[in-house]
């Protein structure tokens, strides 16, 4: 999430995934040097219907910890959520929960 001046570094952190049918899938939003904090909060409210405090908490988690789980459920739903976040220009991935 961008402060006033955006660096251009790409996050290098990765999250390992192991195949296990029982574990749920999650959609993760990653910190990103371009998007404004207010924009990330706005998108989380629009897409997931989160109230302002919830969306703000998730946005701050992305900003401070580098990533946040924004939804969980079946794989197909997480694919869909990821593509909606990509349509809004956020940096998102989906994976089986660690």
């Amino acid at each position: 999430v961008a402060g006033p001046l955006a660096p251009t570094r790409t996050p290098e952190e990765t999250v390992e995934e192991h195949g296990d049918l029982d574990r749920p899938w999650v959609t993760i939003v990653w910190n990103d040097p371009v998007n404004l904090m207010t924009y990330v909060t706005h998108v989380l409210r629009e897409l997931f219907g989160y109230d302002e405090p919830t969306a703000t908490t998730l946005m701050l988690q992305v900003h401070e910890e580098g990533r946040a789980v924004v939804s969980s459920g079946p794989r197909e739903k997480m694919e869909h959520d990821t593509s909606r976040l990509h349509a809004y220009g956020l940096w998102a991935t989906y994976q089986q929960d660690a």
Partner: protein
Amino acid sequence: MRPFRRRGGDVVARLDPAEAHVLGLLLDQLDQLLAADPDDVDGDPVMARLLPAGHRSDPELAADYRELTEAALRSGKTDDLAAVRATLPVDGGQLRLDPEQAGSCCAPPTTCGWRSASGSGSPRTPSRPRTRREEGQQLAVYYWLTALQGSLVDAVAAGRDARR
């Protein structure tokens, strides 16, 4: 520039002629990128932002995701660009967006993508080191687009809160 603010149900901004021109150029660059042969723009940093990978460490999952979503994401982003293009006053002036248009224009690449594009040139531009003057100009464009996008997001969010 006069930043976005709510007027009735719409949001309204005013652009100088030079600002409208820069915005038009950035829209063109993004349109070219989305329309280009994927092989020609492979590895382009703006392209990686427009259509990011769905998974970071599993190539198979990332490939599945791309196959499943890329066509729709491409056409959605092209439509968003066209929506901005349709409302952009070519020689500057008032930019008025109804709530639906404002929603599409908030969504990158229409705003964020402009900003990314402003930092890395067009796909047709051969890569060469940027001069300090060019870097200064790109930074100025970046700050200006940030202010424009920030005011748009704030105006849209205020409109949503007013409806609830």
